[in-house]
């Protein structure tokens, strides 16, 4: 039997609460609040306490999905295929309608560095200031 805890940061919002994911025989089975943590001081909200719940959930998407045409069904795809599809369509939309026809949604769940990269990509590569994030929804 193997039981250990892995220190990580809650992925539900931007607060950055500290928690441990309980790993039992290679599977994440629970959450413990990190006591003495500089931000959360051993406390979590109801979402934080359930940080483990989606990791092995049957409903979790484990592969990209593409909808080939409006109103069509989603089908499973590889990452290469999905990324190629997104790159091609972004280029097409930008050529047809200009960069402001494109918007970028980032997330409070991402790190500062990831969010920085998204806005850099939006502004410097695509050429739009349409950047927003889930915390304003």
């Amino acid at each position: 039997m193997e039981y250990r805890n892995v220190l990580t940061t809650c992925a539900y919002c931007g607060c950055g609460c500290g928690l441990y994911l309980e790993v039992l025989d290679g599977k994440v089975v629970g959450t413990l609040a990190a006591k003495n943590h500089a931000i959360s001081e051993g406390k979590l909200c109801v979402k934080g306490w359930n940080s483990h719940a989606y990791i092995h959930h049957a409903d979790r998407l484990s592969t990209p999905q593409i909808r080939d045409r409006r109103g069509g069904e989603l089908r499973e795809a590889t990452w290469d295929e999905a990324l190629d599809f997104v790159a091609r369509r972004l280029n097409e939309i930008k050529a047809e309608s200009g960069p402001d026809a494109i918007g970028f949604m980032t997330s409070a769940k991402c790190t500062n560095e990831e969010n920085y990269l998204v806005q850099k990509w939006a502004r410097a590569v695509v050429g739009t200031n349409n950047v927003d994030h889930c915390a304003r929804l």
Partner: protein
Amino acid sequence: MDRLALTQEAVKQLLESGEVEGVLALRASGPSTVLHLYRPGDDLADLALWPKYNAPKIMDLLLQAGPDARLGMVVRGCEERGLIELAKHNQVDLGRIQLIGVACSAEERDGCRCAWPYPSRIDVGEKTEGIADVLVAEHEKLSLEERAAFWQKHFARCIKCYACRTVCPQCFCEVCMLEDKLWVHTGTMTPPFPTYHLIRAYHTVAKCVGCMECEAACPADIPLPVLYALLRRDAEELFGYVPGRSVDELPPLVVETLPQGG
């Protein structure tokens, strides 16, 4: 040797004895400690003593995961008493657990305002006497109206995170009343007074050993152990029952419902 070195030595000996598959203890990790199952051959240098966690609940999880496993556990007084209550409710098999008893230091006792800071057998550390909970004493001075206002003020700050239920070693029901929409509505804050908190309070009677994990986990700093300590006192006065004192004492709910009181 200090308490930490003595605990490490005791865990090492138990692991080397071959009697257990692993020993549940605290391990230094990042800003804190956390529970860890040490196995034979593991480096024990990062074994730690404080801050403690809700260890009985994790032992329950491990024993269920390994129906044949025999495990060791470093326990403080509250953790041993928590295991005893779990055993009485058929949650853990004490025959499969070997305990290494650690007495709490005076500082740790003061932090928990603990009345009983040592296990039944002390393998590590020296016994310090328990203290009265100063918050309970302050509560005793309040009038009935002041008490109602005191709890309403605290419960109004609850964010319904369920941490008190989630961390509690004595909360093991597969179907939790606090998730029944009849008593606790979904999608609204704060939880209805008094159902959420008083259902939980009644469910701790003759089970809560005062481990303080609910207080440590509460983001609203609600002094829940004060409420549970008062109920614990009532159970002792009315039924002579002290949670976790002895595995042979039947809970009053069982005794009182049997013919002739058992």
